[in-house]
């Protein structure tokens, strides 16, 4: 509230005592007048009043304060005035030459103000601005002859007012009203934003926010676009005490579908619906969904400037249970991809035989996962002095079309038509012993058990085993040895730590005869060097006798900066090297682990703790030490500039179907110019083909009461018949007047966020 009496409904609690402090106090007994002077301070209920002089006539109950009067009201309004007259319950009052600052940092200046019957406050010749007494004239303010604040209706009415920008009037408006800024959820139009996109034309999206009840509200947005017509959006949000759900719709009847010629957007009617929710069953169990359906796969990207809730490729129903150490996650998943089909008969990797080509029917090749369940339990009590933990997984999915490609003279399958299920249960035991001289021994053992249920519906895929049920186990015992050395110097210390692991296991059985749904990615780097099983999923189990050797170095300074590095290599000592034998997918052919002596891997992380930081992983070829893969990221803040740079080099991986190397530089910069302005930009540069893939440049302004941003971006990575997608976007916000910033937080992990 900003008016004089704070919430008028509960007027001052006159049963409270009043404390008055002053340098001098005159108490006129006969006519009961108290005159206090000398920086008088009065504390009454939650009010404080300061003034040079206060006369309190107890007979007629009038307060009059004069001389730089300052009054703070219970809800935080801070009123400054030359003189002030108040009834002794502060309900009526007349102030002149006053300024009011409210907790919402809105600022009223008026020649005089009158409060009548507890509810109305009328300002004469007042100005309303959201800037505290800024030295220069505030960017914008509203001057009007009378401003009336109606307490009950929670609205502010401006009569005969002029909107001033930089101190000069740009618009005269006879009469308008806004919501009282203290009211968070108030229905009304939000400020528009502007967009220009080459295939959509120029558009203005005008949102209307409607609070139907304290627990549910609606945002309807209409965006007329010069080339494609009207895009309509509706977002419904409902909240319960145990959770919430949202529904977002987007629809357009495209006037010029031809603009999207060559992509799935070349249709007249396009529509998208997304709903997400989160409900707490107990304080440990939660359930909910995040589902999206669009009439065509390109809708979300083509109309990217609009926000359709948490629309994304993955749709999921989830049940999650967690304690501090254990978890049970169950997800049912479906996918609607945005990638356009792009088959070409001349593609060398097209599979031999009756299979769809590469990049054809991409949508049908995606599985329905019904469900995937992860369950992990750490046993509290030590067993044989060590820690035992169980982690299990159930994955069951169905796919309509086989996802095949041809490489090295063989057909490989990223996914096979049919229904495939697997139940896995792993038990791991480990214990660490430290001997007197500081050597660290960690004996461990684990047993992985997998039961596959295969219903291969594509009899052209003969590589898969014909058995309907297959069991595969992988027991292992091993030892990890570390011997860290410490050396201290003034201001910090360094640690050098040799690490060695030996893992003894039987060979992995039936490689290539079982589907591989969740272990398709194999990136051998410093983070996988000391994993006992370097596969990324349950569908593959590393086998044979393997040793991992590494040297770790850490240098840390007391004031917080640190350097930490690791260098190592892995050796297959005996048995079958699971990474050498091509599985049904053969993604491990170029992983660096396929030779008995693996490639070298290294990582380096350096943080100056003063705003600069660099970190990266790299893998070097075991023979010629050539770089096989390198990913380096750096971020820095220096004065007004803050920048994030990253470089990546990936050598070609023919076995995985990547036939040429990739090398890329991505940079983004944010430069704060003087005071409120900032310039920002980002760039993604493909170094192999020497072209810019994506770039953005923008200008932003923000101060206490106004924010605006203009951005222009180009995206050439999309394969939808449009070489470059150009988007120009402008939005602005006047604080407390139709703020467009509706923060939308959804907690589901979003793979494409």
């Amino acid at each position: 509230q900003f008016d004089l009496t704070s919430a008028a409904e509960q007027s001052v609690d006159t049963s409270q005592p009043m404390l008055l402090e002053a340098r001098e106090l005159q108490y006129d007994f006969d006519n009961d007048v108290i005159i206090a002077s000398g920086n008088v301070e009065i504390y009454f209920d939650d009010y404080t009043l300061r003034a040079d002089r206060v006369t309190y006539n107890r007979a007629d109950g009038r307060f009059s304060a004069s001389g730089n009067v300052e009054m703070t009201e219970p809800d935080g309004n801070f009123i400054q005035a030359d003189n002030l007259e108040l009834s002794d319950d502060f309900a009526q009052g007349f102030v002149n030459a006053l300024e009011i600052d409210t907790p919402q940092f809105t600022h009223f200046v008026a020649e005089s103000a009158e409060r009548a019957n507890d509810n109305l406050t009328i300002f004469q010749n007042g100005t309303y601005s959201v800037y505290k007494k800024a030295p220069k004239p505030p960017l914008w303010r509203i001057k009007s002859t009378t401003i009336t604040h109606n307490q009950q209706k929670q609205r502010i009415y401006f009569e005969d007012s002029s909107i001033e920008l930089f101190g000069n009037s740009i618009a005269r408006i006879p009469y308008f009203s806004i919501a009282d800024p203290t009211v968070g959820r108030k229905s009304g139009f939000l400020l528009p934003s502007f967009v220009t996109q080459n295939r959509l034309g120029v558009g203005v999206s005008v949102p209307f926010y409607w609070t139907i009840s304290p627990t549910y509200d609606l945002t309807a947005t209409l965006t007329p676009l010069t080339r494609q017509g009207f895009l309509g959006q509706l977002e419904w949000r409902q909240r319960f005490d145990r959770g919430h759900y949202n529904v977002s719709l987007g629809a357009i009847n495209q006037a010029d579908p031809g603009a999207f010629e060559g992509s799935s957007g070349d249709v007249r009617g396009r529509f998208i619906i997304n709903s997400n929710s989160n409900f707490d069953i107990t304080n440990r169990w939660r359930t909910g969904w995040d589902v999206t359906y669009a009439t065509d796969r390109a809708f979300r990207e083509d109309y990217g400037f609009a926000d359709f809730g948490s629309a994304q490729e993955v749709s999921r129903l989830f049940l999650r249970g967690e304690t501090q150490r254990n978890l049970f996650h169950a997800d049912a998943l479906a996918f609607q991809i945005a990638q356009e089909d792009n088959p070409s008969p001349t593609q060398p990797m097209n599979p031999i035989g009756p299979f769809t080509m590469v990049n054809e029917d991409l949508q049908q090749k995606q599985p329905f996962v019904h469900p995937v369940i992860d369950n992990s339990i750490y046993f509290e009590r030590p067993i044989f002095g060590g820690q035992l933990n169980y982690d299990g997984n159930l994955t069951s999915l169905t796919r309509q079309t086989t996802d095949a490609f041809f490489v090295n003279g063989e057909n490989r399958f990223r996914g096979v038509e049919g229904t495939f299920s697997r139940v896995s249960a792993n038990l791991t035991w480990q214990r660490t012993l430290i001997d007197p001289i500081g050597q660290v021994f960690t004996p461990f053992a684990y047993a992985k058990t997998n039961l596959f249920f295969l219903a291969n519906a594509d009899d052209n895929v003969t590589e898969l085993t014909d058995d309907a049920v297959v069991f595969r186990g992988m027991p292992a015992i091993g030892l990890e040895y570390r011997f860290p050395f410490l050396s201290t110097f003034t201001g910090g210390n360094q640690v050098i730590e040799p690490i060695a692991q030996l893992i003894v296991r039987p060979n992995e059985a039936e490689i290539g005869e079982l589907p591989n749904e969740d272990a398709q990615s194999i990136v051998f780097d410093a983070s996988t060097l000391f994993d006992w099983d370097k596969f990324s999923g349950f569908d593959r189990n590393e086998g044979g006798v393997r040793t991992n050797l590494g040297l770790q170095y850490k240098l840390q300074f007391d004031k917080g900066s640190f350097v930490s590095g690791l260098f190592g290599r892995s050796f297959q000592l005996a048995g079958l090297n699971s990474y050498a034998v091509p599985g049904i997918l053969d993604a491990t052919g170029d992983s660096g682990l396929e030779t008995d002596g693996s490639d070298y891997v290294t990582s380096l992380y350096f943080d100056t703790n003063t705003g600069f930081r660099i970190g990266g992983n790299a893998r070097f070829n075991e023979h010629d030490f050539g770089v096989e893969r390198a990913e380096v990221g750096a971020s820095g803040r220096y004065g007004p500039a803050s920048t994030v740079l990253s470089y990546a080099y990936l050598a070609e991986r023919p076995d995985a179907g990547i036939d040429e190397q990739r090398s890329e530089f991505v940079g983004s910069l944010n430069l704060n110019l003087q005071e409120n302005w900032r310039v920002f930009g980002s760039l993604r540069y493909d170094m192999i083909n020497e072209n810019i893939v994506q770039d953005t440049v923008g200008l932003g302004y923000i101060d206490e009461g106004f924010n605006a941003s203009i951005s222009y971006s180009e995206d050439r990575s999309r394969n939808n018949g449009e070489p470059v997608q150009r988007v120009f976007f402008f939005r602005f916000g006047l604080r407390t007047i139709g703020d467009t910033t509706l923060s939308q937080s959804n907690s589901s992990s979003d793979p494409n966020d």
Partner: protein
Amino acid sequence: CQFRPLYGTSTTLTDDGMERTQTVPDQMASISLDFPSYGDSFAITNINQVMRNQLIFAFTRGGEPLPPKYRLEILSDRRRAEVGVERLADVPTAYNITVNSSFVLSNIETDATLLTGRSFASASFDFSSQRFANLRAERDAETRAAKVVAADINTRIASYFATHPEE
């Protein structure tokens, strides 16, 4: 600068001449863990749980924890970046997951802050046309990055205790 084993037992003479072997592992086993959470996303909840379990094993070495004397608070954030996006490729070649954490080690009794620091690690996974495989690979990459950060924090706390023996 001479090197000595990080976990070597350093015998110190207490003032009354008693020999007191006070090893770093005992200190480590009396650390209690706290992961303040602010409406975290599923990914952050998983990362916190991986770090917690890794550090509990690193501190207690599989045995019983000692009565807590220290508190270690860790706050983490996760970034995901597309890697190797080419023109007309429509999809990236890989994704890179970076986990950034800041940690504070404090003495429970005196509530004094002993050590603060930041740690970060990244792990990447290759893009597959099978979106389900990407989901699982992303979860594995998050776990790997979290394990590297946990191991880094563990070593740095061990070196703190080795260089600041309890009075």
